[in-house]
């Protein structure tokens, strides 16, 4: 079959042995060769950027955006803190809403009944 093919393309066996590796080398090494063409002459030549410019664009802008986003995220809690600071101090007189205590009798029987009542109370304690 090969003899028939060689006869068809007019190649001897020796020529085939030389030309096939050469073609493969051209396929592999061709693209790796340095490009011969430069930038077109009609393009304007830009001045190279200074380090300060590079730092400003690639460092300053991301850092500025980072600070801006952090500030936007913290803004609501900062505003609330300005309004009230729980846990630091209570600067006012005690406040009552709804039912308010009546003046307590100081005799022993009244105190005894209060203690008895206090034993039956329910509820929960919580902290924040």
């Amino acid at each position, binding site marked *: 079959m090969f003899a028939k093919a060689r006869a068809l393309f007019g190649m001897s066996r020796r020529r085939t042995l030389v030309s096939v590796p050469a073609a493969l080398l051209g396929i592999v090494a061709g693209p790796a060769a340095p490009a011969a063409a430069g930038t077109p002459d009609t393009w304007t030549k830009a001045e190279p950027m200074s380090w300060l410019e590079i730092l400003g664009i690639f460092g300053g802008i991301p850092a500025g955006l980072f600070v801006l986003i952090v500030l936007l995220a913290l803004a609501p809690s900062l505003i609330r803190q300005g309004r009230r600071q*729980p846990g630091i101090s*209570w600067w*006012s007189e005690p*406040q009552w809403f709804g*039912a308010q205590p009546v003046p307590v009798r100081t005799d022993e029987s009244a105190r005894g009944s209060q203690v008895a009542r206090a034993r039956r*109370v329910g509820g*929960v304690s*919580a902290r*924040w």
Partner: protein
Amino acid sequence: MPAGEPFSAAERDDIEQAVKQAEKLSGLIFSVYVGNADPELRSFAERQHASLPEPEQTVLVAVDPAARSLEIVTGEVAQRVLSNEDCRLAALAMTSSFAEGDLAGGIRAGLLQLGEHARRPATLHTEDHV
């Protein structure tokens, strides 16, 4: 709000309205104390609860912002419709708001939640058979 006043007029109104709403929903009496407690809030709240006009039917919500602590005290009758578990859920809602600095909002939300939990369903078709 004026300096030294812990609540604005609108916040005071909100809390008063919430007290009324909770009382209407539950049929219980609600009382709210906000201020310092000495020496410890639980014992202070129980003493105050005992000196309320009708302690058995009263739910006292005591908040000490300086100590960052909250107490809910329920009287003997109030406990029948308002379990400690209900109080715990309300306390959780309140402390979440307190931690964000919203004292009035937390009190209001807690009162409404307590009132909702203690709401007794209307009893129908019973008076005719008594």
